[in-house]
C-alpha cells in the first residue's frame, strides 16, 4: 500500500508520459523550474535546469546514463542561498540518497526544493551508452522493459548491477514504473507533506494504492542485486586484499583527484589534500627517500584513498561516479563499496534512508563500540 496516484498517459512512450507531467508542473505554476536529465548536444544526457515548458521535449529522465551525481549539483546550487522560486528536482535513487546525506551535513538546503525520485533500472558507462545510442530503439525504454520482465543487463555499470535501491528510500515524491503497467501509467507516490501538496497542486486526488505486483518485482530485483553485491565483496576479498594486491590495484593512480571531485558526499570546502600539509619542500621528499631507500613521486596514493575512505565510508551511497571519473582504471568503486559496506554495517546505518536519522560520526553516544578501544590499564 502506498499513498499516491496513478497517472495515465496516452503518449508513445514512458518518456513522453513523464514529459506531460513536467509540462503540467510548469504550466500550472506548481513549480517554476525543474532540474532534470536533459539531452545535450550530441545525444548524451546531463542535468539541466528547465524553466520554459516549450523545452520539455528535451528532458530524458528514462535515459540510462548518469554523467554526474546531481546531488553535487544541488550542493553547488543551494549552499550559498536557496532558490527563491520552487524547483522540482528529479533524481535517480543514488542521487536522492546523496541529497539526504548532504541535507544532514547542511550542504543542501531543502527550502523551495521538491525532491522527486524516479525508479532506476540502472545506467551504462559513457562509452557503452554512446554505442547504444547508435541503435534504432531507445536504450532507456528497452532497459525498463527488460527489468520489468525480471531480466538484468550485464552491461550496466557495476555500481548499478550491485545496487539494492532501484527505488529511492526517501524523497518527497517517488515516481514508479517498475512492476507496473508502465506503458499505460506510472505511479506518483507521496512520501511527505510537500509531495502531497505537489500532487494536489496538479488537481489530482491522493488515495491508498495497492502495489502488490510492484513490491514483488522490486523485492526480486533487490534480491538479485544483493546477490551481485555479495559476489563483488567476495571478489574484492580474493583479488584486492592485502598489501601486495591492494597496492597493485592502486599502482596506476596518478592522484588526479577526479574520484574526489565527482564524489557527491566528499564535500569539504577546505580539503586536506589541498592543504599546506601536502606542500612539501624538496628535503621532506628526500627525507622520505633516505628513510626507505626510495619513494614514489608523486607520493601518498594509499594515504589519499585511505583518507577518503575514512571520511566517506559511512556516507558513501555507492553511486560509482568515482570509478567513472578515473582515467587510469583504478577499481575505486570496488574498494569503496567493500569498505563502506562494512563501515555502514558497523553503525547499522544506511545512508540516504532517512532524512531525520543522525549521521553516526556526528551523533554522540556515551557508550559505543567499546570493543574497538584498548582496555584501560
Amino acid at each position, binding site marked *: 500500500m502506498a499513498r499516491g496516484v496513478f497517472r495515465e498517459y496516452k503518449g508513445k512512450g514512458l518518456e513522453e508520459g513523464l514529459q506531460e507531467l513536467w509540462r503540467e508542473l510548469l504550466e500550472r505554476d506548481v513549480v517554476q523550474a525543474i532540474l532534470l536529465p536533459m539531452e545535450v548536444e550530441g545525444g548524451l544526457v546531463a542535468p539541466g535546469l528547465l524553466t520554459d515548458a516549450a523545452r520539455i521535449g528535451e528532458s530524458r529522465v528514462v535515459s540510462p546514463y548518469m554523467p554526474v551525481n546531481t546531488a553535487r549539483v544541488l550542493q553547488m546550487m543551494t549552499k550559498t542561498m536557496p532558490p527563491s522560486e520552487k524547483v522540482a528536482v528529479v533524481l535517480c535513487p543514488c542521487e536522492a540518497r546523496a541529497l539526504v546525506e548532504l541535507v544532514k551535513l547542511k550542504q543542501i538546503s531543502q527550502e523551495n526544493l521538491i525532491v522527486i525520485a524516479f525508479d532506476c533500472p540502472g545506467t551504462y558507462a559513457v562509452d557503452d551508452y554512446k554505442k547504444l545510442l547508435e541503435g534504432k530503439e531507445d536504450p532507456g525504454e528497452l532497459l525498463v522493459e527488460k527489468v520489468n520482465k525480471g531480466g538484468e543487463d550485464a552491461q550496466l555499470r557495476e555500481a548499478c548491477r550491485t545496487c539494492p535501491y532501484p527505488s529511492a528510500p526517501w524523497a518527497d515524491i517517488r515516481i514508479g514504473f517498475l512492476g507496473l503497467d508502465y506503458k499505460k501509467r506510472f505511479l506518483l507516490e507521496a512520501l511527505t507533506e510537500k509531495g502531497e501538496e505537489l500532487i494536489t497542486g496538479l488537481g489530482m486526488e491522493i488515495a491508498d494504492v495497492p502495489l502488490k505486483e510492484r513490491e514483488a518485482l522490486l523485492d526480486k530485483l533487490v534480491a538479485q542485486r544483493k546477490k551481485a553485491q555479495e559476489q563483488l565483496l567476495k571478489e574484492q576479498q580474493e583479488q584486492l586484499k592485502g598489501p601486495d594486491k591492494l597496492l597493485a590495484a592502486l599502482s596506476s593512480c596518478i592522484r588526479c583527484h577526479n574520484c574526489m571531485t565527482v564524489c557527491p558526499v566528499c564535500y569539504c570546502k577546505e580539503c586536506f589534500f589541498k592543504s599546506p600539509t601536502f606542500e612539501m619542500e624538496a628535503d621532506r621528499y628526500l627525507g622520505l627517500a633516505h628513510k626507505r631507500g*626510495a*619513494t614514489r613521486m608523486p607520493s601518498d596514493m594509499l594515504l589519499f584513498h585511505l583518507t577518503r575512505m575514512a571520511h566517506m565510508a559511512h556516507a558513501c551511497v555507492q553511486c560509482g561516479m568515482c570509478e567513472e571519473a578515473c582515467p587510469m582504471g583504478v577499481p575505486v568503486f570496488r574498494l569503496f563499496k567493500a*569498505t563502506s559496506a562494512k563501515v555502514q554495517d558497523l553503525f547499522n546505518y544506511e545512508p540516504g534512508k532517512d532524512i531525520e536519522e543522525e549521521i553516526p560520526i556526528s551523533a554522540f553516544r556515551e557508550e559505543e563500540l567499546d570493543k574497538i578501544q584498548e582496555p584501560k590499564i
Partner: protein
Amino acid sequence: MGIIKTILDVLGLDSDRVYLTWISASEGPQFAEWAKRIEEDIKKKGKNPLGGLLTT
C-alpha cells in the same frame, strides 16, 4: 577508530598496528605503560609490510 580499523581489515592491512586509548595528563604511569606495550607489540610483529613498497 571503528571506521579506520574496519577499513584496514577489509583491505587486508594490519589494523592491530593502530591503537586508541585515552590517557589523562595526570596519568603518567599509564602513558609509560602504553608506550612500553606498543613497543613490545610492534617488535613482535616486525617490520611494517608496507615499508619497502613504493605506492604508499
